[in-house]
């Protein structure tokens, strides 16, 4: 098991947003984290990155407890997190954004290697390598954000709402790219509100409602599950 989240609670000040949630991701697996707005999906990714601290429970990565590892040391362990709304550095070029993605020594060593690999997956980024990130379209920025995450040589890539605001064409490209990444043995944990889309690509899914895990299982079992429909559509 690559990522093993066990029974965590998360509180913002004294307001509890995550209740006793357990999630795991295996090597080379694509896992979707589903749920309506405000159900705590992003909070879980932020907890794995330690942008938010959890109470109780534990988070293991590669069989080591990482609950107390500070955010900036987690990329080195193999966790890359693509934040919601892309969050590229707007006033830096595409190339500069990418090279900052390879910050830890191991990734730095592989910089030119990773770059040529990234440019093969995202040919547009090579064309635009000297352009400021803020001048690119939303879809291109999303590609850049994912590419930047890949530069850290992750074992686990966490992506928050990757399809938000993308055109169907770009979405299709991105789905293909995700499948490519997984086929290389990298695991993906992503947050998505579109259940059908998410379950059509993921191996497994977890459904959250108001910070609690409602149901989880293989995508095929979830896709027509009544409980899942209930979470999203109500009774």
């Amino acid at each position, binding site marked *: 098991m690559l990522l093993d989240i066990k029974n965590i609670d998360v509180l913002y000040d004294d307001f509890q947003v995550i209740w006793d949630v357990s999630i795991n991701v295996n090597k080379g697996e694509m896992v979707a984290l589903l749920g309506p707005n405000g159900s705590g999906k992003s909070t879980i990714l932020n907890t794995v990155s330690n*942008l938010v601290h959890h109470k109780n429970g534990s988070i293991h990565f590669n069989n080591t407890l990482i609950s107390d590892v500070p955010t*900036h*040391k987690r*990329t080195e362990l193999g966790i890359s997190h693509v*934040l919601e709304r892309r*969050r590229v*550095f707007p006033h830096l070029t595409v190339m500069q954004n990418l090279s*900052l993605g390879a*910050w830890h020594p191991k990734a730095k060593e592989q910089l030119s290697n990773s770059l040529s690999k990234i440019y093969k997956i995202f040919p547009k980024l090579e064309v635009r390598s000297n352009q400021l990130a803020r001048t690119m379209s939303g879809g291109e920025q999303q590609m850049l954000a994912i590419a930047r995450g890949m530069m850290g040589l992750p074992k686990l890539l966490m992506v928050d709402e990757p399809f938000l605001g993308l055109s169907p064409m770009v979405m299709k490209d991105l789905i293909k790219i995700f499948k490519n990444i997984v086929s290389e043995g990298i695991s993906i944990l992503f947050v998505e509100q579109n259940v059908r889309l998410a379950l059509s690509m993921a191996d497994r899914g977890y459904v959250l409602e108001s910070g609690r895990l409602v149901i989880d299982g293989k995508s095929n079992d979830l896709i027509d599950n009544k409980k899942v429909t209930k979470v999203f559509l109500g009774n």
Partner: protein
Amino acid sequence: MTSEIILQAIVTGLMMGLIYALIAAGLSLIFGLMEIVNFAHGEHLMLSMFSSFWLWSLFGLDPIFSIPITILLMAFCGVITHYFLIRYILKAKMLIQICATFGLSIFIRSIAQLLWTPDFRNVDKPLLEGRLEIGSVFIGQPQLVASLVCLVAFIGLYLFVTKTETGLALQATAQDRHAAEILGIPSNKMFAIGWAIGLGCVGVAGGMMANYFFIFTDVGINFALFAFVAVALGGFGSIIGCLYAGIIIGLVESLGGLLIDPSFKLLYVFAIYLLVVIYRPQGLFGRY
């Protein structure tokens, strides 16, 4: 009024402007990085002038030679400021942040008065003395060297921030702290580096000015005010903006003094500040 006098005022203004630019760049770097205004910037300038003075007075080291020591001392002072004060107020409300650095300025100035009295001091017979005469224009040697050193330091700062890996990481942290952190860039370390460089800039300016300026505990106040004007004029967070703004301020100060009335020198500078705030609040090169 002859063209020679105007030329003289332009040269004097330019030389002063380069010094303002470097002081402002330090302020701008710190602000751009963590959105904290260092209201103790003038006191840090005062400290660097005193550093230069004491190194001369106690060890007989000429300000020209003690510059590296002053820079290092000020960089160290920056790290300490971050470690013991700023780090605790990063997430605090803006008013608290203002009170913290403003309080620091009063604290430093009071301690300085306690230790060193409010007397005016100056470095006697420094190596750089006298003036050059080029055509009809007189250029004070220490002033000329100070402004050139500040210009070199400014260029160095600019290249560091835009071309080096650490500089890029500083920019990334300034633009999106969490996104940078998530890539593995430790923001606390970047903040400490930012403070070290910001006060290092002040160290260069103060150390060079110790050659020809009176050194006293309130010396930094006007310089800090000018630095605020320069940062606002150049655009918050823009380092290159500080260069243009510093030069503009230097020129306005000296030309205004010459053409209108020298006793209102400060007035002209602050009039520009008001105009900028009203008509172009983002400054000349600002992003905000």
